[in-house]
């Protein structure tokens, strides 16, 4: 148990000319809740897949739970739980059938099953939905079911690829509560996210852009070095709201995506002024949260430092 939970050495993976993971060197200790943070397309999923031993690197090496991803992939698979970004369970199987299927694949002893399943269903609040088809669950419940299946064999390391993507705020909070409970049981958790508020909950985060690790530190230190802030705002009148604030001081960019929009700010402190401005225009806001800026210059600036 002395070796680190995860250690990578010049880990590299490219798809054609596109370098998805560029010489990644990272060491994660047992019991850490490590957050891999970066915008879409930064290489988060590729790193997850390499470490879960379901993809081979172009060069470099990594060890997970003491085993090489190059030579001992199947041993790693016995010791980890992995949740892909896309829902990977069977929608035409019920909650219970999915859990039992994975219990069989991981060879969970029959005697231990009732206790473990009851516990997993309990903390994920899925007990009332045992007989429901997985495809009929809400997004948040699907993710919790995925987590339950990934935990059925009590893994040493848990890989979660953007587990709260597309999940409502309440379920998101639930999900993180579960992760904290797991942390108490000394499970190492490796989670990727594009949301800064989630990154802040990790014991340590790694910022990644274009396959390169820009920095790995605790959330407070990383935040300090952010030159720009980005906020995701949910509003039924997103377009109108965006129009109202786009010319304000300190607002660098506004982009609308359906019923939400992203604001890029020179500093987070400007958010109060923006909310006041939106109230004056009479635009309703349902929710807002800080996200990782996806603008390239933010990262370029950070690389310069």
């Amino acid at each position, binding site marked *: 148990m002395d070796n680190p939970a995860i250690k990578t050495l010049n880990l590299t993976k490219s798809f054609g000319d596109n370098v998805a993971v560029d010489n990644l060197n990272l060491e994660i200790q047992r019991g850490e809740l490590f957050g891999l943070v970066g915008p879409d397309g930064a290489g988060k999923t590729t790193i997850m897949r390499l470490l879960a031993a379901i993809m081979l690197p172009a060069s470099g090496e990594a060890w997970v739970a003491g085993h090489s991803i190059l030579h001992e992939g199947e041993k790693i*698979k016995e010791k980890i739980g992995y949740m892909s970004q896309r829902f990977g*369970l069977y929608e035409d199987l019920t909650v219970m059938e999915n859990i039992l299927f994975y219990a069989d694949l991981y060879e969970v002893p029959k005697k231990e099953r009732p206790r473990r399943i009851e516990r997993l269903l309990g903390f994920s609040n899925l007990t009332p939905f045992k007989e429901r088809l997985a495809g009929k669950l809400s997004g948040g419940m699907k993710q919790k079911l995925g987590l339950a299946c990934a935990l059925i064999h009590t893994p040493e390391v848990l890989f979660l690829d953007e587990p709260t993507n597309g999940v409502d705020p309440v379920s998101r909070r639930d999900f993180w509560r579960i992760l904290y409970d797991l942390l108490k049981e000394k499970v190492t958790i490796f989670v990727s996210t594009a949301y800064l508020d989630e990154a802040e909950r990790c014991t340590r985060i790694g910022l990644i852009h274009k396959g390169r690790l820009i920095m790995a530190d605790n959330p407070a230190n990383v935040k300090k070095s952010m030159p720009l802030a980005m906020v995701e705002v949910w509003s039924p009148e997103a377009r109108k709201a965006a129009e109202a604030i786009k010319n304000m001081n300190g607002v660098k960019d506004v982009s609308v995506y359906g019923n939400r929009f992203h604001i890029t700010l020179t500093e987070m402190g400007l958010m109060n002024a923006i909310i006041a401005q939106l109230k004056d225009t009479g635009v309703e806001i349902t929710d807002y949260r800080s996200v990782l800026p996806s603008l390239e210059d933010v990262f370029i600036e950070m690389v310069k430092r």
Partner: protein
Amino acid sequence: MKLMRIKAIVKKEAIQILRDPLSLAMAFLMPVMLLFIFGYAITMDVDNLSTVVYDRDKSSMSREFIAEFRESRYFTIVGYAEKQADIDRYIDSGLARVAISIPEDFSKNMKTGRNAEIQVAVDGSDSNTATIALGYISAISELYSQRINKAPVTTFNSPHSGREGEVPRTLFVEGATGYPLAGVPLIVTPRMRVWYNPELKSRNFIVPGLIAVIMAIIAALLTSLTIAREWERGTMEQLISTPVKPPELIIGKLFTYFIIGLIDVLMSTLIGIYLFDVPLKGSPLLLMMLSSLFLFGGLSLGILISVVAKSQLIASQVSIIVSYLPALLLSGFMFSISNMPGPLQIVSYIIPARYFVTMLKAIYLKDSALNLLVFETVLLSIFGFLVFMIANRKFKKRIE
């Protein structure tokens, strides 16, 4: 390999098939449909040919002659023409495919011993049927002329052996092309005896071959979708992150579809026996055993396609091309292999359905025992084993 994992895969696959109406239909409805379509559509027997008759002679002899056609099961008289134009109308509109025109001097010629000619027009747009129809017409005409002569066949040509005052007559049948099709008096009547399929019903050899074609398509198509579907739906990524071993996954999937395949064989056999009246002469147990062997190869091929293709669309197209088409065209099911051009004959050796068709026909029609089918059995076993091994090796628990 762990039995627990194989059982888990089998159970999961079974639940998924049972809950998916499309899979169910493909597994159990498609074979029945194919059997019906082919069983009824592909028949090499020509019977009940719609026929129009233009009797210009209107004598007792011409009526007798027409009756010969009416009473044979090959022709159904759909109408009588009053003038030449009626015949054209019948043929053009498709109401009749055969027209028989009897000239005014038919009975006169017959009685005076001259060649009595009739004119036959056949709709040649289906050349196969047309040829067979002309064959039937000349056969019926020959039989009729023999009967009228009442002379022993062997002395047919002797002018003195006939009834007193009569000379032998020959009935000429003139085909649509204008030359006589028959008319040489028969000196020797061939007495043919057909073994194994005494009624010469094409259905008796089509249905056994059909089972091979259905198994080929079902086996390859159903399994070719299973792994590709998991890649498309994203469930494979989750699956390969577990310690499940490729042979466990492949055997689990094979087993589920193997059971479906056996049910299909049973269904097809029963439909063949009870609906198409195709007798099964050989051992049902041997039929099931050898079907299992063929299924194993076909299912493994489907898995291999699925492993390589990773997309349901490509997998299904490839499986139709490599399993269904060869089974239909090159297995000896529809076209006799010995009549194929040389290169195609060689190609047919690598088509497993070829051996299965041989086996099925042998069991169905000849009651052959296993010892007569050793060659086919050994080749099918080698094929199944090889494809299964390749599928296992090709299946990687890694994303490219």
